[in-house]
């Protein structure tokens, strides 16, 4: 086959769709933000539709014409053409048409030859888009959906898979979010002055939630969940690179996500069974990602403010820098948790702190730490609460009590591989000879 000029030989369609997908994810926010700057934030839908259509066009034509030599430039040019077609056809912006066409002329089609000034505008545009999507007037669950749609180019179906909900529910969330943007006239700008700090916190919180969605579950669409983690990391990196938001807590958030994501691959074995930290093959941990995480950790240690992200990043760093489970610096982890519980009163944090307490001061201290957790009602239906108590009791050789907790944990656990792990622990406890009076 002879490839047309300016293209390479045509690779198989599957590869093209993968390449387009990858490129698209990375170009999406940029294209949407440039179009939004030109057409206004109230036409966010229009911008997204144009960019979606651009990808569809790439997927349709690339298998025939081959992958363009500069795919990003191709996408940009195609998006511009589509936008112009729409303007002319719909006559929506007749009064502004000349101005819009002028803006298009500033917009180079070749990302490699963009002026540094335009490059800064792109950075600004992306950050503006992030601030608009994470505006506090939009409900949090809609913020994460909107971020995935608008900043990461996820389809509603993909978002639904990632959040384990229906496509219709996601579509509703997205529509409402965009309605609010229009109704409240949410500005397309980077906040400044005092507002910046609180608005940035809202943005970071959304990115953190996005990461957690990807990190927490072992079930379902693993691939898409890993993608959520990497998109959250990408967004945080983008935020950390803009001078307005290049702040210590941004780096701390980025660090904690990198250091946790670095361990993702080692968390299950080849059969999908859950592995405990001490059983994980640490050579599977992503060293390059750990390095990035530690570099970010270093950049976060500035100034006089410690955020919850700093403390979580510090904890993750302790795990990542331990060559094996035995050499984990538990006293340090506990010191970090001691501070974390001061600024985050979540019972989940307190429960995790109890594990560190047990590693440092023994299982009995761990049990006491659990008993001291305030507002622990929400833990009563949480399988790890019982799994941890069971673990502590079995270390104390109170096997019948341990078995009771483990049975409750098994009831509450919902994933087969977790039930299996807990059942194995239960069997160990049940097979212990009943402890008779301890001889002194």
């Amino acid at each position, binding site marked *: 086959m002879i490839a047309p000029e300016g293209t390479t030989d045509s690779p198989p369609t599957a590869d093209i769709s993968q390449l387009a997908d990858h490129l698209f994810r990375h170009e999406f926010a940029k294209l949407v933000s440039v179009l939004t700057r030109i057409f206004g934030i109230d036409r966010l839908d229009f911008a997204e539709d144009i960019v979606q259509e651009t990808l569809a066009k790439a997927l349709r034509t690339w298998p025939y014409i081959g992958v363009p030599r500069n795919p990003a430039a191709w996408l940009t040019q195609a998006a511009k053409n589509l936008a112009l077609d729409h303007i002319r056809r719909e006559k929506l912006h007749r009064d502004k048409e000349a101005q819009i066409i002028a803006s298009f002329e500033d917009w180079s089609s070749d990302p490699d030859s963009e002026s540094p000034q335009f490059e800064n505008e792109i950075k600004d545009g992306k950050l503006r888009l992030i601030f608009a999507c994470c505006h506090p007037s939009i409900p949090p669950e809609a913020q994460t959906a909107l971020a995935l749609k608008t900043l990461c180019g996820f389809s509603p179906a993909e978002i639904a898979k990632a959040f384990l909900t*229906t496509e219709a529910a996601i579509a509703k969330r997205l529509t409402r979010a965009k309605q609010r943007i229009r109704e409240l006239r949410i500005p397309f700008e980077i906040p400044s002055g005092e507002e910046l700090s609180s608005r940035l916190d809202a943005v970071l919180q959304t990115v953190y939630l996005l990461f957690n969605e990807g990190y927490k579950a072992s079930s379902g669409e693993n691939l898409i969940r890993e993608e959520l983690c990497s998109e959250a990391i990408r967004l945080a990196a983008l935020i950390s690179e803009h001078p307005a938001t290049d702040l210590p807590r941004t780096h701390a958030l980025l660090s904690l996500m990198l250091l946790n994501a670095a361990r993702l691959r080692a968390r299950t074995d080849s059969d999908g069974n*859950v592995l405990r930290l001490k059983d994980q093959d640490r050579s599977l941990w992503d060293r390059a990602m750990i390095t990035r995480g530690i570099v970010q950790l270093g950049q976060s240690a500035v100034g006089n403010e410690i955020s919850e992200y700093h403390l979580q990043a510090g904890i993750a760093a302790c795990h990542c820098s331990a060559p094996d489970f035995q050499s984990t610096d538990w006293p340090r982890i506990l010191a970090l948790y001691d501070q974390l519980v001061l600024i985050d009163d*979540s019972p989940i944090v307190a429960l*995790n702190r109890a594990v560190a307490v047990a590693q440092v001061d023994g299982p009995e201290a761990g049990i006491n730490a659990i008993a001291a957790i305030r507002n622990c009602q929400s833990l009563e*239906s949480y399988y790890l609460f019982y799994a941890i108590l069971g673990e502590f009791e079995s270390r104390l050789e109170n096997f019948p009590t341990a078995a009771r907790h483990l049975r409750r944990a098994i009831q509450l656990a919902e994933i087969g591989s977790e039930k299996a792990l807990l059942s194995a622990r239960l069997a160990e406890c049940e097979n212990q000879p009943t402890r008779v009076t301890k001889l002194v």
Partner: protein
Amino acid sequence: MIFFRGNDWDKNLSPEELQKVTSNFMAWFERLSADGIAKGGAPLESETHVVSASKGRIVSDGPFAESKEAIAGFFLLHVASMEEAVEIAKQCPTLKYGVNVEVRQVAPECTKMRLAEQLVAHGAA
């Protein structure tokens, strides 16, 4: 060819250099915690602007290795006992296939609201 600026952070730092960066962080942390930390991150509860549209802050599960990986594996389904949370969970159509559901706990009231009520009560007195 991808535009992920920042891939180059991935400088080849030696394990010793990484250790040094980590130690610097820990030294910084210890200095601040000795000074009585906390002022840094305003307590999460008062940072509730994220959810000013709804009722309180999101309590989400975090990427904590201690409970998930040290004890019983890493998966964590945050099941709150509050009715709203359960209602949300029930709407998930994949529930019956044994899929876990995202459930978030909403604090009973927003601290800003509490503050406002206190101020009103104070003003009325």
